[in-house]
């Protein structure tokens, strides 16, 4: 029976089966998975991590496939993490992103892993960053993370990726949508996908007008707006060029360092928060205090803030 150390060693030797087993251990957040991450983490950090987000049906999977093909044409090795939702009722999930990337399955320089959100909000799965770390340490040049269909507030991916691509489609809301805070603001690159649709040009012009007026360059980077058609494989070369330019930009301006500090802060705090809450719930489920406080709040004998104070006290 191979140990975690064996698996890690085989991962560094380029064994895909070992990589895959480790991804499962990391995804399930087992003690072995945590032990593996401890050994893998120091050897990660070289890959360009790219987040791809946008609403359901915006064409993220098709665009991921198109992007992957162009990256392969440029001889980059590639890890893809594709996230789909877990059912809140059955806890099951149907993960269908491979359908759009069938031709990439047999490419030995591509590794595609599907993940379910398992109850996590924010567009990612709970262990996504660990899975990205492993693909990165495996030696992939690019790790592409495709979020679950995101609405307006699923911005977690930006805290994890070096470059965030937000995918929009014509007809998915007027220009006022684009002026709202949230998902639009996290874009390092904005993509108007399905550019083969009839009203695509009008939508593209509206978006460009908004961006020119309000998004003065952020940290010296002007978010480009690109037209693509994932299905027709159009505009993809320009998108990969923009990815490369963004990476060069964050590296040359030392923003990458600052960004990595933010990423690390986000990860440590997110994990610490989760552990504290798990511990609190475990402790006070055993001694019955949680139920007792909840009952008093439900009876209006205590307000929720006081209930939380009492639980933490």
């Amino acid at each position: 029976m191979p140990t975690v150390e064996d698996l890690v060693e085989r991962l560094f030797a380029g064994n895909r089966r070992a990589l895959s087993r480790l991804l499962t251990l990391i995804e399930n957040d087992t003690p072995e998975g945590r032990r593996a991450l401890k050994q893998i983490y120091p050897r990660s950090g070289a890959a360009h991590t790219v987040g791809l987000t946008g609403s359901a049906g915006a064409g993220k999977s098709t665009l991921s496939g198109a992007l992957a093909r162009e990256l392969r044409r440029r001889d980059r090795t590639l890890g893809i993490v594709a996230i789909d939702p877990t059912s809140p009722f059955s806890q099951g999930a149907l993960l269908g992103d491979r359908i759009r990337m069938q031709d990439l399955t047999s490419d030995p320089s591509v590794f595609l892993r599907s993940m379910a959100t398992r109850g996590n909000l924010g567009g990612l799965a709970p262990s996504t960053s660990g899975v990205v770390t492993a693909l990165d340490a495996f030696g992939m040049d690019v790790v592409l993370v495709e979020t679950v269909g995101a609405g307006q507030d699923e911005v977690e991916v930006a805290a994890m990726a070096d470059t965030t691509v937000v995918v929009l489609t014509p007809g998915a809301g007027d220009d006022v949508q684009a002026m709202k805070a949230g998902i639009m603001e996290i874009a390092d690159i904005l993509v108007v996908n399905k550019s083969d649709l009839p009203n695509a040009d009008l939508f593209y012009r509206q978006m460009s007008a908004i961006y020119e007026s309000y998004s003065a360059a952020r940290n010296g980077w002007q978010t480009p707006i690109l037209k693509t058609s994932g299905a027709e494989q159009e505009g993809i070369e320009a998108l990969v060029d923009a990815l490369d330019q963004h990476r060069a930009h964050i590296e040359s301006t030392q923003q990458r360092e600052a960004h990595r500090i933010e990423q690390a802060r986000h990860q440590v705090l997110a994990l610490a928060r989760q552990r504290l809450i798990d511990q609190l719930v475990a402790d006070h489920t055993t001694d019955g205090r949680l139920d007792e406080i909840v009952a008093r709040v439900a009876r209006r004998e205590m307000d929720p803030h006081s209930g939380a104070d009492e639980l933490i006290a």
Partner: protein
Amino acid sequence: MADDKIRVLVAKPGLDGHDRGAKVVARALRDAGMEVIYTGIRQTPDMIAEAALQEDVDVIGLSILSGAHMELFPRIIEALRTREIAPDEVLLFAGGIIPDADIQPLKDLGFQAIFGPGTSTQDIIKFVRDWAATRPVRAT
């Protein structure tokens, strides 16, 4: 918090494009709380084995209506082996149009069940769950 989900690959090998049965099974397993990776139609043995490797699935369910199972299934087993996945490490089952005479040879090959037309999805769910409950603890 360890969360050991049953991960299932549902795939259609070969050239027939009738994926209704595969989709019904995929949905039923999803509704039973499993994580189902659906690959779509027209999969080669290598594509199926490679998807099983990348997704590290516990279970592989194949749907075939074309009659090419005796040709394709051994090649799938072989493609799994070349990726260091032994047939007894995963639960292999198949469904579709498979004559009775072929069932035993497929079982000898490593398939643990063949589900014919009219099988209740509840039977398939129970079969997968029973296997998961008694499977040996996986090597890391």
